[in-house]
């Protein structure tokens, strides 16, 4: 289980998280919800060690993560797909995947597993990442995170700016990872996606977690989203 307990974090001197807590379980999708600036991306960055946690703790199955240097956190098999994909534009698809495989010592089996999930990437292995379409780039970013054979997958707005067919493809991958028992933490703006996928929802407001809710409760009363987020 991924446990985030009352974390506080800051960008330099500017404090941005003032107490975020959540528990995410294997085989479940936990959605972080909140208005712009509520601290969703910052929470993910803090979990990944990209932002120092000044108070509180982050742990995975009892192992503290907040005390580890940032580069050691992915080695605990935590994959992060940031907003904007952040590919290595000059490298080919194959090289991007190779870079993903190397840190955890994964080999051809994992490579094939990833390429089976995204067969379109198999056709473009020698193409530079910068020449891929937006949807393909998202696939590559996701594939690269899956190269770690993650236990936890953090996705920050994975469907942003994608066409409907591509959104569905990404959605299916997220559901497949859930079915394979991964802990999935998702930031998503599309309400239909949240309603259809979330097992648990954590509402963030001004850098604090305000309320946790089961996905089923949200589906029973979707108006909650309007009341809480004004959407």
């Amino acid at each position: 289980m991924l446990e985030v307990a009352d974390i506080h974090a800051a960008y330099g001197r500017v404090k941005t998280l003032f107490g975020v807590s959540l528990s995410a379980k294997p085989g479940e999708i936990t959605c972080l919800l909140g208005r712009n600036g509520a601290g969703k991306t910052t929470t993910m960055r803090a979990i990944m060690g990209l932002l120092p946690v000044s108070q509180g703790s982050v742990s995975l199955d009892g192992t503290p993560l907040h005390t580890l240097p940032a580069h050691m956190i992915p080695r605990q098999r935590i994959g992060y797909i940031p907003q904007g994909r952040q590919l290595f534009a000059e490298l080919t698809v194959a090289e991007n995947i190779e870079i993903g495989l190397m840190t955890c010592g994964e080999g051809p089996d994992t490579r094939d597993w990833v390429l089976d999930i995204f067969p379109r990437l198999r056709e473009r292995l020698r193409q530079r990442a910068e020449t891929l379409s937006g949807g393909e780039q998202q696939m590559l970013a996701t594939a690269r995170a899956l190269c770690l054979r993650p236990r936890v997958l953090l996705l920050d707005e994975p469907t942003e700016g994608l066409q409907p067919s591509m959104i569905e493809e990404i959605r299916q991958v997220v559901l497949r990872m859930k079915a394979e028992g991964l802990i999935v933490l998702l930031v998503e703006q599309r309400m239909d996606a949240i309603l259809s996928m979330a097992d648990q929802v954590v509402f963030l407001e001004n850098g604090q977690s305000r309320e946790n809710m089961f996905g089923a409760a949200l589906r029973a009363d979707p108006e909650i989203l309007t009341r809480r987020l004004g959407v």
Partner: protein
Amino acid sequence: MSHRDTFLHLSVIAVLFAAFFVLPAYHSGSLARIMVLAIYAMGYNLAFGYTGLLSLGHALFFAAGMYGLGLTMQLGGWAAIPAFALALVASLVVAGVVGVLALRTRGVGFMIVTLMFAQAGYLTALYFVQYTRGDEGFVIDQAARAIGPADLSSEAGRYFAALFLFAVTLLVIGALVRAPFGRTLIAIRENEARATMLGYDVQRLKWIALVVSGTISGAAGAAYALLFGYAGASFAGVQYSIFPLLYVLLGGAGTTLGPLIGAIFMFYLIDLSSGITNAYMLIAGVVLVLLTMFLPHGILGTLRKRALPWLP
């Protein structure tokens, strides 16, 4: 390394080998000097072109190699090979220490810190004038510049020694940048934060890249002293930190052959324009501005982007 890359590199080495027998003596002499400068630029390219570390202090590593060899041969009476080995160790140690401190900064901070280290090296060379003879420099005895029966002060000996070192450096760097290590350096250059998010110890990898880069630059400095028989403080000056940057920018950062192309271009640009006017740096400057405007990725970088995406 792919077969195409290896074939290209071996072809360039073969052309340089044949050039000695075809070119007039003046140009083959120039080419020997260019090859040594290209080794320096190849070392610089590993830090800047592949890892994204814009250093303004590589003259320190070049000078560490140059003095490492020059002083041990001239003052210690060492033979060429052990002196060369010591020069490599000297530049490796200097690069290691500079790396530990300078890599605490990034961007402009890194540029300034490396520049300051190089200036400190330059001033040190001037301070110990009784050994280095400062700006005036010192000449290494012609008799000592030999490896076994090979006289490195002769035209042919110098040329083929430079070619040998150039070939080794090119093949090693070609293999290095195609290996997982090289791909990781490119990943760091492209997106440092993302490389960290994938579990790479970016700081350690940047340090290794800088140490390898500095050692190759030191090898170039040692080769320069050995083949041309001279070591002087001017090689530790800021100008010699700027030169490899220019070579790499002109030839194409992050390309294996860009440093050679850039060095040839710059060398002959200055050589030819100085034959026309005393204000030759003005002509060189205008040409450089035009090239940067119209070929922002350098000569080979542009070629790779527009026509030959496989170019290493």
